[in-house]
């Protein structure tokens, strides 16, 4: 694998294969989107890489001129391998958009050192409803080594991988080990990333959610909120702007959650080593369901410091990107809290499962007209049920209740958001 990289000069910097999840060990560049000589800006996508889970557009967060590609297309290299050499330039790093996991500091060694620690497991997440048939914690099936293609073909052909002897590295099952002769007709290799990703995703969700239900003593709280004011406010502001700038309630929800988390920091962060560790900002993970099954949870970094329209455009890009299979590396930052929004066609309320090591998950049911009592009158109002699933090791119900009150107040006064 790693070729000898040209020795970095005093002014050159090295961009390494980023870690896009703790369980990601390696990846291959599928396509270079910048060429030697190109000038790159912060936020530019420099390459599309293939991990075992999905294809990801890798962004860069510093400026510079590309000197050389350091790996071949298709070459599977470990996380931390230098992949791009950049000429010196200008300062970069703005605190909002800098996602430190992506750019390795130029001073560190060029070896395949450990990935930056900021990103723990990301991306793939829980089904927000309770699961009944969780796998035993010993995870029998996961010990099988098999290539993504083999897994996806086995699944398509309904073959149990445990019955197959592998001939790949370390006994891994690879596609040609599968009994093709038993198939009827011809089977096309599965479309690039989707089926493979879904398979792996299901596995990741199963493991994560089993761990959450096993380890985390959840408590659940709910609160109904009258969204009448918020919906009127959105309608008025959407009337005067073109479609591309219209805002949906989901953006209000995310912004309101982010603001509320900043006020209740005990719910914003992680449970690690038997103690609570506050987040270094409010980074909201947004659960996005895929029509093909499964979920991805891209993160909006520092969501409390973004405007509602910025949140809205992030959400739109994330939904479109997730569902068309092009994730961005800047979405892989570790979230400090997760939001699940069931949307217009969803259920009335969700009793979520926390994504460990986070300590809270906030769910929004569908917005529906319901009878609402105000000033001793019953009126139909658009109402949403907000639910909180929180880790009882980190907080108690009183703290959770206060968070929901803050959240309700924000949504009743959208102009303050």
């Amino acid at each position: 694998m790693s070729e000898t990289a040209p020795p970095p000069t005093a002014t050159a910097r090295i961009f390494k294969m980023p870690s896009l999840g703790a369980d990601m060990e390696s990846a291959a560049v599928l396509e270079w989107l910048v060429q030697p000589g190109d000038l790159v800006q912060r936020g530019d996508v420099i390459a599309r890489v293939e991990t075992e889970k999905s294809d990801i557009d890798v962004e860069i967060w510093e400026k510079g001129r590309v000197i050389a590609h350091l790996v071949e297309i298709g070459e599977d290299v470990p996380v931390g391998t230098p992949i791009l050499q950049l000429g010196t330039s200008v300062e970069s790093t703005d605190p909002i958009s800098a996602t430190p996991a992506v750019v390795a500091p130029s001073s560190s060694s060029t070896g395949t050192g450990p990935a930056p620690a900021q990103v723990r497991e990301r991306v793939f997440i829980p089904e927000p409803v309770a699961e009944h048939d969780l796998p035993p914690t010993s995870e029998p099936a996961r010990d099988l080594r098999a290539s993504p293609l083999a897994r996806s073909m086995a699944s398509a052909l309904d073959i149990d991988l445990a019955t197959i002897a592998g001939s790949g590295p370390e006994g891994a099952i690879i596609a040609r080990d599968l009994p093709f002769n038993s198939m009827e007709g011809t089977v096309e290799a599965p479309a690039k990333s989707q089926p493979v990703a879904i398979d792996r995703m299901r596995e990741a969700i199963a493991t994560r959610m089993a761990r959450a239900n096993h380890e985390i003593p959840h408590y659940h709280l709910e609160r109904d909120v009258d969204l009448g004011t918020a919906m009127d406010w959105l309608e008025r502001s959407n009337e005067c702007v073109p479609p591309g700038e219209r805002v949906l309630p989901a953006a209000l929800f995310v912004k309101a959650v982010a603001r509320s988390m900043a006020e209740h920091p005990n719910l914003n962060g992680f449970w690690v080593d038997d103690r609570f560790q506050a987040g270094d900002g409010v980074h909201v993970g947004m659960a996005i369901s895929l029509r093909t099954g499964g979920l991805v949870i891209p993160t909006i970094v520092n969501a409390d410091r973004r405007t509602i329209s910025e949140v809205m455009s992030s959400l739109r890009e994330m939904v479109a990107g997730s569902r068309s299979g092009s994730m961005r590396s800047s979405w892989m930052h570790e979230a400090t809290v997760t939001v699940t929004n069931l949307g217009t066609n969803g259920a009335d309320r969700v009793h979520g499962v926390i994504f460990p090591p986070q300590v809270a998950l906030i769910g929004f049911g569908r917005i529906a007209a319901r009878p609402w009592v105000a000033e001793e009158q019953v009126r139909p109002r658009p109402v949403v049920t907000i639910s909180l699933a929180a880790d009882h090791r980190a907080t108690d119900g009183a703290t959770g209740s206060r968070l929901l009150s803050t959240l309700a107040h924000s949504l009743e006064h959208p102009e303050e958001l």
Partner: protein
Amino acid sequence: MKTLTNEAANAIVVEAICAVAPDTANELAGIGLDQDVFQALELDSMDHVNVITRIWEETGIEIAERDYGRLRTLDSLTTFLISAMGSGSERPKSV
């Protein structure tokens, strides 16, 4: 003033949906013209706004939020585009 044929208008709508939700392309082919296409393909409100935006970018035609409810079939969207284009109500933005 430009006019739009039925086929061209239909193609704009179909192309917008395919761009936003490429995974539904196969199903889209089997959707009836008078079916709620967003519901049938399980497109949520975020997908919906992406489709509306795409149509706007392609044609300059703005579909107002108050019309979202009645413009959920391929037929109604196509008819709307033709009449909007005919009446010149599009913004001078593109096309």
